[in-house]
Every structure is written in C-alpha cells, then in structure tokens.
C-alpha cells in the first residue's frame, strides 16, 4: 500500500527542514567520510613501495651473488683426493700403483670378477646390448627384469619384488611413496644417508630414537600413543612407520628385529627394514635379517635391499606383499621417472643369486671369517671396535676421542701406513655437514670378503696392529 510509504517519506523530509543546521552538516560530513573510506585504497606499511625502473636497475647492478662453488684451491686443499684403482677390483686391488689386499670394497661373497657372472653378462650384452633406453613403462621392461623380480621374490620368500636401477634410489624412493605430509616416521638416528634423503623427501614428521635403543623407541611410541588418544580423529588418518636397517652401514650393528615386530603390532606402526648390507650376509641362506632371527617375512611390511654389495652388480630392490609393493610401480619416483636397469646387470644379479643359492656354506664361512677378523682386531690399544660379532663389515674408531679433525687424521694415518704394507682400508665416507648426525665419530670400515684365507686375515690384523703404534 502506498500510503504508509509516502507518509514516512514526507515525515522524513519534513523533519529535515526542522532539524538544526549543525545536525545536518554533521550528518553530511559523516556520509562523505563513509564514502571516502569505502572507496579509498587500503594502505599497509609492509606493502612494497613501487620502485622506479632506474632504481631497480641500480639494485641489480649493486647485487653481487656468492660464487657458485668455493674457489678451486680451497676445494682441493680440503678434499681427500680419490684413490686411483687400476683394473679390476676383487680380493686384491691395484691402488695408486700398489697391489694390495682389498678390505675396503664391500665384496662380501667375493663375486667381483666371478667368471660365471662375467660369462652370463657377456651373453646378455650379445642379446640385449648395454642400455635399456627407456623407463619401465615405455618399453624399458626387458624380460630379464621380470625374471629377476620373480627370482628375488621367490628367494626371499616374499610375494612381490620391484627392481630399481640404483641402490641409493631404492629406499630413497620407497619411503616417500608411502609416507606423506602429516604422517609420522620413527627412524633410528644412525640410519644411512639414502634413508635420510628418503625421510626428507617424504615431508612427514620424523622422530629419531637413539641408535639401536629399543627402550627409547618404545618410550617415543608410548608418547605418540598418548598424543593419539587426545586427538583420535587425526590419529585415525595418520600413518605411522618405523625405519631401521638390518645391518647398519654406519656402525655394523644389527637391529633387534623380534622386538621391533613386537612393537609393530603393539603400537600399530608399519615396519620398513633396509637390508643393503645384510642381504647375502645374514641368515643361513643369505635371505637377510628375517632369516637370521627366524621371523616370517610377512611380518615386515617392506624390505629394501641392494644388488650392489653381496651380489656385485648394480641396482636395488624392494620386496614385500603385493598390496604394499605394487603401489611403487606408479608412485616410486626412482622407478617411474628413470631408465630401467641395463639388462646385463640384471642377468649378472640373477647369476649371483644362483651362485649364492647353490653355495649356502659360503654364508657360514663369511660369518666365521668376519668373527675371526673381529677377534684378531679386538684389544688393540687406542682402537675401539664397533659391530655385531658375526658381521663381516665393522668399524674401527679411536678409543679416546679428542676432536673430529684429529681423530680423522689419526685414522687416516693408520690407513696410509696399511697401504704402504699392501693392505687396502678405507675411512667410512661421510659428508659431515650434510648428515643428520654430524657428531658421529669418524671410523675405518673394514670389509671382510669370503675369499680371504685365514693366513691373510692374520697378516692383515698384524699390519693394522702395527699401524696403530
């Protein structure tokens, strides 16, 4: 109805005429102020002050970046020069002009230079050439890859295996395939660098526990369980993983797998074991740490291994149940975006696997020799031996550490003296500034190969003993 409308409007206009002047002026000013605030640009102090073109050019001219890399003489003075190996490395190796006994290469089963492997590799090159010329998805899958995967899975008694073309890339690609931002990973603080890169790439929350300390791990798991109880909704979508190594590259210790499996089921945390060093070394047939502790392999969610040490080839693998491993065929970055393993290296690995399978007493002999060497080197004054007693790879550290630099020099002197007596050792390579644990003490990593005789072991131990004086 029109009447109330008009009546209100008329009233308003009438009241305007009747209002005092100051009131009207104040109202008009208020309206103008509101309009101004509505239409003016907001001003923040942090906003960039627009610079003129010449000011920008002056800034560009002024800026001096750091050099891309440090100057050459600085790099050369700080770096340890590479040792020149001539010809084929094996039980003996020609280093810097001298023929030495090789206790530096991780050639545990002595398969470097094996004639059977060489013959198979040669035949493979005659059939497939050298490179595979493509990633697995695009005609880079050769039948030998499929065969090697089946063979590995059968040998290790797991359902599925997947091959990578580089040992470093296997665990570094596997971890980020499952663990994403928002997940939690419990990792041993002594894990090797490849695992550290995998952990970094995953963007998950990493909780480190003391090296090989199951009590510390359980404490941290309990703590997480309490946090989960407070926020159960978040906890129901947060995946939890534990990452350990079978035989630690950095200390030669083995992990406590039975306790880890117990913790896995108690706290509902998935278990990944990295077996680069322990595959082909531990266990009655070389199946790794699960065989060593007699634990069915299905209890471990994923095992990641390397074809580069005991099997003396190239590449890496992961094995586990089909439910877990098949995911990596589309999500493992190092698998999808990289060319596949050259076929002859897959053939070499298969032959090495056959040799290992046929000669199971090699494993016993390897453990015996590892134990013997450790016993021979035990008790050298000033030297501390670190490692699982049966392990063929163990570390020698300075007993009373002084400082990183001096300890490293002390160990380097030992290595040099041994070289002069035709024994080849190596300092365990570490990028101190890049590692998680930069205080990890420097060490000499001794690697025993099954091909060394008992007399050679004794001779080597004497050379090392003399070198420490």
């Amino acid at each position, binding site marked *: 109805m029109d009447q109330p409308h008009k009546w209100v409007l008329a009233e308003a206009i009438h009241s305007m005429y009747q209002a005092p002047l100051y009131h009207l002026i104040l109202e008009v000013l208020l309206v103008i102020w509101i309009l101004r605030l509505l239409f003016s640009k907001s001003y923040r102090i942090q906003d960039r002050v627009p610079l003129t073109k010449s000011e920008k050019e002056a800034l560009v001219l002024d800026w001096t*970046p750091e050099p891309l890399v440090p100057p050459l003489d600085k790099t050369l003075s700080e770096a340890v020069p590479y040792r020149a190996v001539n*010809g084929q490395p094996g039980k003996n190796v020609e280093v810097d002009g001298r023929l030495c006994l090789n206790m530096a290469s991780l050639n545990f089963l002595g398969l470097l230079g094996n004639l059977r492997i060489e013959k198979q590799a040669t035949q493979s090159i005659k059939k497939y050439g050298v490179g595979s010329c493509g990633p697995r998805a695009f*005609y880079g899958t050769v039948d030998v890859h499929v065969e090697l995967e089946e063979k590995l899975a059968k040998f290790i008694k797991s359902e599925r295996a997947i091959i990578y073309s580089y040992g470093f890339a296997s665990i570094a690609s596997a971890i980020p395939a499952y663990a994403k931002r928002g997940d939690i990973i419990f990792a041993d603080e002594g894990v090797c660098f490849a695992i550290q890169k995998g952990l970094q790439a995953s963007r998950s929350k990493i909780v480190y526990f003391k090296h090989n300390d199951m009590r510390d791990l359980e404490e941290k798991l309990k703590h997480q369980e309490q946090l989960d109880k407070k926020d159960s909704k978040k906890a129901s979508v947060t995946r939890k993983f534990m990452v350990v190594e079978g035989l630690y590259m950095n200390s030669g210790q083995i992990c406590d797998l039975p306790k880890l499996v117990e913790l896995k089921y108690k706290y*509902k945390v998935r278990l990944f074991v990295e077996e680069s060093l322990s595959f082909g070394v531990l266990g009655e047939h070389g199946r790794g740490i699960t065989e060593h502790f007699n634990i069915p392999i299905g209890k471990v969610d994923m095992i990641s291994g390397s074809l580069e040490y005991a099997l003396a080839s190239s590449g890496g693998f992961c094995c586990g149940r089909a439910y877990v491993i098949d995911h990596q065929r589309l999500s493992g970055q190092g698998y999808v975006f990289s060319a596949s393993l050259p076929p002859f290296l897959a053939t070499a690995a298969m032959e090495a696997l056959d040799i290992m399978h046929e000669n199971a007493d090699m494993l016993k002999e390897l453990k015996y020799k590892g134990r013997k060497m450790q016993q021979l080197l035990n008790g050298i004054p000033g030297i501390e031996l670190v490692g699982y007693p049966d392990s063929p790879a163990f570390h020698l550290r300075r007993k009373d550490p002084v400082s990183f630099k001096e300890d490293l020099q002390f160990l380097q002197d030992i290595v040099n003296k041994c070289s002069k007596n035709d024994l080849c050792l190596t300092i365990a390579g570490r990028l101190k500034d*890049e590692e998680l644990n930069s205080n990890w003490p420097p060490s000499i990593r001794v690697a025993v190969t099954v091909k060394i005789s008992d007399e050679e072991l004794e001779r080597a131990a004497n050379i090392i003993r003399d070198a420490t004086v």
Partner: protein
Amino acid sequence: MNAAAQNGELNRNGANEIYHKGGSTKRKFQESFEPTPLYAAIVTYVNYAVVTLFGFLRDFLRKHGFEKLYAATEDPEMKDFVPLYASFESFYTRNIYNRIQDIFNRPICSVPGATINIVERKFSHSGWTSKYTGKTLKNVVNLGSYNYLGFAENEGTCSEAAIESAKKYGVGVCSSRQEMGNLDIHTKLEQTMADYLGVEACITFGMGYATNSTNIPCLVNKGCLILSDGLNHASLVLGCRLSRATIRVFKHNDMEDLERKLSDGVVYGQPRTQRPWKKILIIVEGVYSMEGSIVNLPGVLALKKKYKAYLYLDEAHSIGALGDHGRGVTEYFGIHASEVDIMMGTFTKSFGAAGGYIAGNRALVEHLRAHSHSACYATSMSPPVCQQILTSLSIISGTEEGRNRIKQLAKSCKIFRQGLKKLGFIVYGNDDSPVVPVLFYSPCKLGAFSREMLKRGFAVVGVGFPATPIVESRVRFCMSAALTDKQIQDALSACSDLSSLLNLNYSKAK
C-alpha cells in the same frame, strides 16, 4: 603451414624468431602449440565423466561384494592399522589407468633397437588380471625407446668393446667413488666427455635421475633462490626440494615471466627479511620430452648475464640429438659451452648406456667430487656401461658414421613431423626436436591408438595424466637414427589409417 597459421593464433609460446646458428645455415626457431579445439576438450570431458561414473558404479559393486575383488588386500592381521592408502587416492588408478594399462609396461625380449620383440600379454576383467600368452610379437617397429642415435645395438663395435671391458674390469664395483670405486675407466670417461663438450672437466654418476637429485643440493641451499621452468622433470623438482632453497616456477619457456621473477628476486630479496638472496639458479632443460620444445637458450643466457644468476642446463634429451656434431642445445644455438655454468646430461638416450654427468669448469667439478651425495654414498658406474659410452662417443665425435647418424636423425625428425602435420594431427613442439608429441586429448583414444598401432606392427608410447594435464593425453614418438626411411613411411601410413578410423585429425592448420 600458411602465414596466418604461423603467427599469433597457433603459436602459444613459440615465436617465429630467427637465430644465427653456429653452422652455415640461418634457421628459424619455430615452435607450435596449437590450442585445444573446443570439441576435443568437450569430448574428453565427456569421456572422463562416463569412465568416472562407471568407476563409482564398479567401486560400489566391489565394496558390497557383487563383483569379485581382484586387487591385493591388506594382511588380515593388520586390519587395525591406519590404512596405507586413502581410498580415493587410487580411484584414478583403479578405474581409469587399469583399463588402458596394457599400453604401458610392455615387456620386450630383444635389444631396444629399431625393431623389438614384444612379449604378448592378455588382460581380462577390465584390466585387473593379466597373463603371458606365450607368444612373442616379432619385429615391431620401435617408435617409443630413447634410441636417438641408434646406439642400442647388440652387435658391432660398441657391444664388442663393452664385452671386452666386462672381461677386463668385471661387472660390479661394490664401492663408492670416494672409497674404492674410482676406476681408471671412470677417469678416462670423464676426460673424454669434457673434451667432447668443450669444457674443463666432467664428473659422471651411475643414474641420471640421481645426478639431479643428489647434486643440486650441493650447489644451492637455504637462502638461495631457484627459478625452475614449469615443465621440469621430476628429478630436477626433487633435487630442488631436497636443497631446501626457495623455488619459484616460471611459465614454460616464457622469457618475460622469467625476467619478471628474476627482477623481483634481485630487487626485493628474500620474502620477509628483505635480505638479498645468496645465489639465484635458473634450471631449464634442453629438450622437454613431454612438449617437444627446445629451451630458448639465447634468451635465458641474456637474462642470466643481466641479473647475475647461474644456469643449470639439463640436456637429458638434447645431448647427442641436437647440433651438427651432437653436442647438444649449445651447439644448436651456436653458443659456446663455457657460457652455461652447469651442463648436466644423461647417457641413457643418445649413447645407449645408463648414467648421468655434470660438466663445467674445474672448480665446479672438484667441488662436486668432494661434496656430491652420489660420489660419497652410492656405488660408481659399472665398467661395461662406461665403455659403451666411450665407444659411442668416439663414433659420434670422430667418424663419418657418427656424422651420418646425426644427419639421419635430423632427416627422420623432419620427414616424420611434416608427414604427421600433413595428415592433420596436432603436433607440439619444435621442428628440430627428436621427440614428437601428438595430441589426442582423450585417454580412450590413446588406448585405442596404441593397441591398433601394435596390431599393425608399431610400438608407440602413450602418456596421460598425471604426467600430462588431464585433458591433454598424447602419444610421444621418439625418432631414431636406426629407423629406415621405409619404416618411417610405413608408420605414417599406419597413422593415416588410424587418423580416419579414430577421428584424430584435430588440426585446423592446412
């Protein structure tokens, strides 16, 4: 192509500019990226909608037990654990990828040369189960492997030399470069590669992917700025992330966007503190394998000099394939190799081997020798692989045969591209790139094309989401110097048949 098609409307990123080349010819730098035709986009969306609907239906049937579940399941003992995969995460894999998975992962049982023997597989239950039929498809023409110069050979000088080196050095090394893995053949390879590229020094690694992911963190760290091309490879992206530097992405091959970001970087510094960046690193590739485009190297170099940035050039697909002597994208543009700070490449594509390298001045290489993650922790390259590279390098750089291979590759690229364009396909990229991506947009056509080509005796590579944008599925042909002219003509006539059968001639340019 007519003049109107060359300018403006068809060229998205590429412009018709003329560069002086190092050789005698002044060639046009011509790239084309024809925009997606509207009806193709609509058809593709409809395809995805239908497949998605069926996907929901099938997921529902599987969940309630109406349809048999073929996928692997979680261990019954672990049913209380937090699920390993989010249920929607693998929707695409279960319902779309699975249906066309027979076009991927085809196993071969021969050398990946000009023709291959493919092991036949049969897929059933919408792609859930597969088995080997026992048959082998013989002599399928290989248009998918990265065999640019045809060095994937099992006979001839390369393989004989590789066999000799296997006898001399063995197959494995069992040690890292810094420990006991530095063999004389590695030093020889590095010296030869440095001489070939025309730089001071070079360092090699066992895996091309790891070359990027383990070395970029040695060059830049927190407080540095990385300007990375939008279409960079996953290994470069991972290397940048692991370095902890700040990453800013510029539009693919777009010099204006790059300049804007460089200018902002230098002028305004780090985001909150306004402190200047320690270093700025521009990361580009020589040839982008999904787009077939070549980097605008003169443009990038001009900007690099102006803003004092460093340039990292990934020549995975361009080394051996571009340039009169196969020296890569620097030779293609007539630029001296020393102008690029870090030249990286892989040996997988043009040399028929495996592994990667980084080359540059001696200070750079010595720094990487001491600090590279790969040199310290990963085992060094296998000796027969080194020998394969050495032999193929000596053929490429010194002999008539090498020159012929490079010429043959350039000729094949030209013939094939022009042939496809005449047939009406939309072909992306630069006329000189050895990678020829042809756009099909719909993943269904991708599957059909790949299967039909296999029936006619051609092996092609189809790429879809997530390697490409969701509506831009494509088939990527890789040219090879080993392919004969007849094989290329046969491939073109097969494509012509399929173009009419599957309605693939989208191009409006005629």
